[in-house]
């Protein structure tokens, strides 16, 4: 039995768990990628943490990540995903396959392709796709990634996550018993009231799970943003994930980058534990 599981466990232990432990150790050293700190890293205790927690750079990247999660995942993906799920579970809507497929597209393409597609959408000048659309209703062209970088990546990440929210909510809504809805209809409830007072309370659980999951995955979004902006202009879109990458591999401060990783890990693991406890997983 243990022989059957061992290969999987070894691989996970070496490449997922060991890095977690190693991150904690590295975060307490002044390890650098090059120079003196590379050969003989010194133990520096909590110095990296105090440096991080008093540096505007890191605190701002935390703030931006919080903003990014709140607006793109908790507001954007939730609302649009719910809208798509509710409308697509309506029996009267035709062409569900095509519509659902279109909504699925942003999620299924590689993140590099998603970013590339938006590079053209958000291109500055009157020829950019978004600008051209807005010109039709009288707006002047905007350099989206320069003037509204956070708003831009929030829209892009919302776009990419609608499908995931839709899939989870569709499954939840299909689980709501038709009898209840029928009964409410008989009592004269309209579509909105049925949704607000019957469906919504009954799918509270899945909604909460979605919010936890999307918070976790959004916290670690990297490629989608890095491809488009590389954290810029300036540090305007430097999320924690980009901060970790830049500090470690552009400025070679592995100790500092690891400390930021540990902080991120702690937050994500707390959310993850809550998820596992609440998800009523069957094992």
């Amino acid at each position: 039995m243990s022989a059957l599981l061992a290969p999987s466990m070894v691989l996970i232990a070496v490449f997922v768990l060991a890095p977690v432990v190693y991150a904690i150790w590295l975060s307490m050293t002044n390890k650098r990628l090059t120079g003196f700190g590379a050969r003989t890293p010194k133990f520096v205790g909590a110095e990296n943490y105090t440096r991080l927690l008093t540096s505007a750079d890191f605190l701002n990247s935390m703030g931006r990540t919080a903003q990014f999660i709140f607006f793109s995942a908790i507001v954007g993906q939730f609302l649009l995903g719910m809208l798509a799920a509710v409308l697509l579970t309506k029996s009267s809507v035709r062409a569900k396959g095509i519509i659902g497929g279109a909504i699925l597209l942003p999620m299924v393409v590689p993140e590099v392709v998603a970013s590339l597609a938006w590079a053209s959408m958000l291109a500055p000048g009157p020829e950019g796709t978004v600008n051209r659309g807005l010109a039709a209703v009288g707006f002047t062209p905007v350099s989206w990634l320069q003037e509204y970088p956070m708003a831009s990546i929030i829209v892009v990440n919302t776009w990419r996550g609608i499908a995931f929210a839709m899939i989870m909510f569709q499954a939840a809504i299909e689980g709501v018993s038709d009898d209840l809805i029928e009964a409410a209809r008989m009592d004269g409830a309209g579509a909105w009231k049925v949704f607000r007072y019957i469906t919504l309370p009954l799918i509270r659980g899945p909604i909460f799970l979605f919010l936890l999951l999307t918070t976790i995955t959004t916290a670690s979004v990297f490629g989608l943003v890095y491809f488009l902006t590389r954290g810029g202009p300036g540090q305007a879109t430097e999320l924690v994930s980009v901060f970790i990458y830049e500090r470690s591999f552009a400025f070679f401060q592995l100790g500092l980058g690891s400390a930021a990783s540990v902080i991120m890990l702690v937050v994500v693991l707390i959310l993850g534990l809550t998820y596992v406890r609440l998800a009523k997983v069957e094992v």
Partner: protein
Amino acid sequence: MAVEAAVRPLTSETQVKHRRARSGATVVKHFGVYLVIVVLALFCAVPFAWVLLTSVDANAGLYLQAPTLTLDNFVRFFTEEGTPRLLANSLWISGASTALTLAFAIFGAYALSRYRFFGRRTLMFGILLIRVVPPTATIVPLYMIMINLGLNNTYTGLILVEAAYQLPLALWLLKGFIDSIPMELEEAAWIDGCSRLTGAWRVVFPLARPGVGACALFSFVNVWGDFLTPLVLLQSPEKYPISIGMFRAFSGRNQVDWGLLTSTAVLYMVPTVLLYLFVRRYLLRATVSGALKG
């Protein structure tokens, strides 16, 4: 409406009017529903228009425009120096990691499904929890570990890491599939003289084939689309997969060759879109690890 009125002569004039007004409202409502859902679908699909149109445009540029149709960009992808290599690299990395994931996960999942050992529940929860560890938060120490193991900038290293990343999901998915295969079938095989392992091999694994297939597709697509891990773990351009090649071409100092870049993007995204079509019905199970129960 007229027929209804005819067979129900008792319907008063006002009632007919009322019904007519209501059906008018439903038409408006119906139209509204379609309007919203179509706008949403367009929002999701429109960004890809530029990628698709530019890949067949002889005057490819950064802006959405009617293409001067040509397949030259795709021809160039296969003839240009460097780009066919990206495709081969991606295929090798994703294929090998998927094979490794499956080879390990099939036996692991069998053990998790069929043996009741001490700590099994904790282990299952642990595996689920590992899925939430963000790669961004472990990439720095992982890089150091790869250097120490002498696996930095090697395919062996990258493939092992990618397999490790895919294993938690694969174990969960496959365990679910094996759970649904009746134990009695296996017991019958034992009576016929099969050992535990040959019983599993002859009876359980063939029946779990759809699960193995779904698992393979998910692993493949995940590794295929990965950006961060190869970005950090591979440094030689001749080893780059498509994701990193596209990133370098997009953000390099040279002028961007939009035609080549978008044709690469199309070739890169088509397999994932096709594979998702196949596994659409397993999508929910995979995205939440079979964790969701109504």
